[in-house]
């Protein structure tokens, strides 16, 4: 059955995502301040995302000498667009903007555009640091993609559907995180990795002077940085329908539960971020392929057996 929201929500979706991203940035600033021993007042932190955006809007753009402006521009623009398209299948409450029959695959396909986007931004600037940043993201992507796919598939197996609203419906009684904890952890890791954020921030790392974003100024920088936060928010929000019961919960309406749970996932990510150092590519890829991938496959197998045991299919 198709339970998509009215079309007007498509306009509202970017606003919602940006608002949550705003809150996440502000929270990140507060936590960073506390970790550094220089607390930032809430009021300052709350205004900070707007202030930074304004700074970049006022700022001048830069052009690359012998670089590929076209590819760089395309790459930058793809990042926020991919995040928004991925978020289209997110149930806001119990109903998503686009209730695709293959919503989980769609979500995955849209996220993967970040690979192309970051690499293009890194390539287009014609700078060594940027290019290394772009390559780092591809290496990291090869590491997270397989565990990420298996985590998504595990949730789909549990619900026996690729439709995200069906996955939510299947969790009316029991949240999937209970029967598939490994998939949940792998998913959270890949959320941070796909948004090249926090411990997976090496592609835009400080050692590379900003990496893929090193040469971006003005609006270009704003678009890429916003796209990155939107990706993080969209992916973190996806953990709610897949593993945390979506809009199901007592007392509150469904949309409120989705919001609360999304903010909780983001809070956990932001809180953990400042306790964890940046993970290097060569360590992560091997761990991901040798440990995480088999673990998520085993998780998928266990869930399959559970579903078969309950007389599913």
């Amino acid at each position, binding site marked *: 059955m198709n339970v998509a929201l009215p079309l007007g929500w498509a306009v509202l979706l970017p606003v919602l995502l940006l608002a949550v991203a705003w809150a996440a940035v502000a929270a990140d600033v507060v936590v960073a301040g506390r970790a550094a021993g*220089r607390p930032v007042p809430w009021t300052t932190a709350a205004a900070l995302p707007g202030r930074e955006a304004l700074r970049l809007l006022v700022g001048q753009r830069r*052009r*690359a000498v012998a670089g590929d402006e076209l590819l760089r521009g395309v790459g930058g623009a793809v990042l926020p667009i991919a995040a928004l398209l991925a978020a289209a299948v997110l149930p806001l409450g119990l109903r998503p903007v686009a209730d695709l029959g293959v919503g989980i695959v769609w979500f995955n396909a849209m996220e993967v555009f970040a690979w192309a986007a970051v690499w293009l931004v890194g390539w287009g600037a014609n700078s060594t640091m940027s290019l290394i940043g772009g390559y780092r993201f591809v290496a990291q992507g090869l590491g997270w993609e397989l565990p990420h796919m298996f985590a998504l598939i595990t949730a789909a197996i549990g619900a026996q559907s690729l439709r995200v609203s069906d996955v939510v419906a299947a969790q009316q009684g029991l949240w999937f995180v209970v029967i598939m904890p490994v998939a949940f952890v792998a998913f959270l890791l890949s959320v941070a990795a796909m948004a090249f954020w926090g411990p997976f921030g090496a592609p835009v790392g400080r050692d590379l002077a900003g990496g893929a974003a090193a040469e971006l100024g003005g609006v270009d920088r704003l678009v890429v940085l916003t796209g990155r936060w939107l990706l993080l928010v969209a992916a973190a929000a996806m953990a709610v329908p897949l593993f945390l019961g979506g809009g199901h919960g007592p007392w509150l309406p469904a949309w409120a539960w989705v919001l609360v749970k999304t903010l909780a996932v983001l809070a956990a990510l932001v809180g953990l971020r*400042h306790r964890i*150092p940046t993970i290097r590519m060569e*360590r992560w890829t091997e761990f991901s392929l040798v440990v995480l991938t088999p673990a998520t496959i085993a998780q998928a197998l266990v869930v399959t057996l559970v579903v078969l045991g309950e007389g599913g299919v």
Partner: protein
Amino acid sequence: MDLRRALLRAAAARPHVLIIGGLGTDRLRARVEQEVARRGWPVASAPADADVVVVIGRPGPELRAVIDGVWTGVPAPRSQIWITDEDEVSSALDDSVQELADLAAQRAHAPRSGLPAIHTGVFPPEQGHDISEQSGHDEPGEHGHHHHDGGMELPGGLAMADLGEDRDGLALDQLHVPLGPVLPEWPSGLVVDIVLQGDVIQEARSRFLDDVAAVERQPDAARALDSAARVLALSGWEGPAARARGLRDVLLFGGGETVRILEELDDLRRRVRRSRLLRWVLRSAGAGRSEVLEALDDKLLSARAAVAGAGAEAPVATDLPSLDARLVGVEFAAARLIVAVADPLPQPALARPTDQGGAS
């Protein structure tokens, strides 16, 4: 017009600061960093990210050429301030905010020929090549296009990569790039000319810009903490890095009791030693040992000893040739950590030939 002024003022309230200084400006740099952190301003990661370029000390001709190159890459609105004395720091930073918000001044600053250009890396290629190949006997400001043997010149004045064997036995492109002196978490005034293949360093030759004969030396404890903060920041541990910097500032400029400093140092050391993730990230080849982590711990320990007043031995400063040797064959992220840990000092005793050809 009023709206534009108001927007400019709002945007200028929290500028990103890029600090550039030559050899021997560490104390002044620490003072600027302290003031910038106190105001809650971020330190820029690259020229593209900067609003205010703070030049500290009195840069020599080579560094001055680098600063000019960096300045062309800073997007407007922008401000450049020169600080030579610790007393000027606060007022100079105030002035820079004024300048950023000043529409007329920004108009005068803005490059007339379109947008500012991006050069390869954070280091403009012309100057990079000039310096790397001709340091010592070239007058600054005279920028010809010199390229490495075997490189072809391409449109845009960039050198084409040449080929070389990589560590898997594939002949792949090599790039000649200078690292520094304008990089985040990088020792003042240091430049390492590297031959880079992918993100693996094939050859390295490090030197200091504008060889300064007499270098003002920081107290050992402050120097060790500075280096430790760099390592922590490069490992992505911004919080502990900022704490290490705060301790350094207290040591240099006062404002804390010894007991508190010791407590905080112990706390920091405990966190570093306990983090298994940090160990996992930093470990190098060889039975789970981590040279970087051990060096980091040593630095914190020696800082503690110096603060406590125990006669600690001064940390052994790495000289440039041994730094070069350690960088060869290392992956980029590891190389950054090695440089941060090594924290090299110029060795006046060792007369190093500075007028050889390029790194190749």
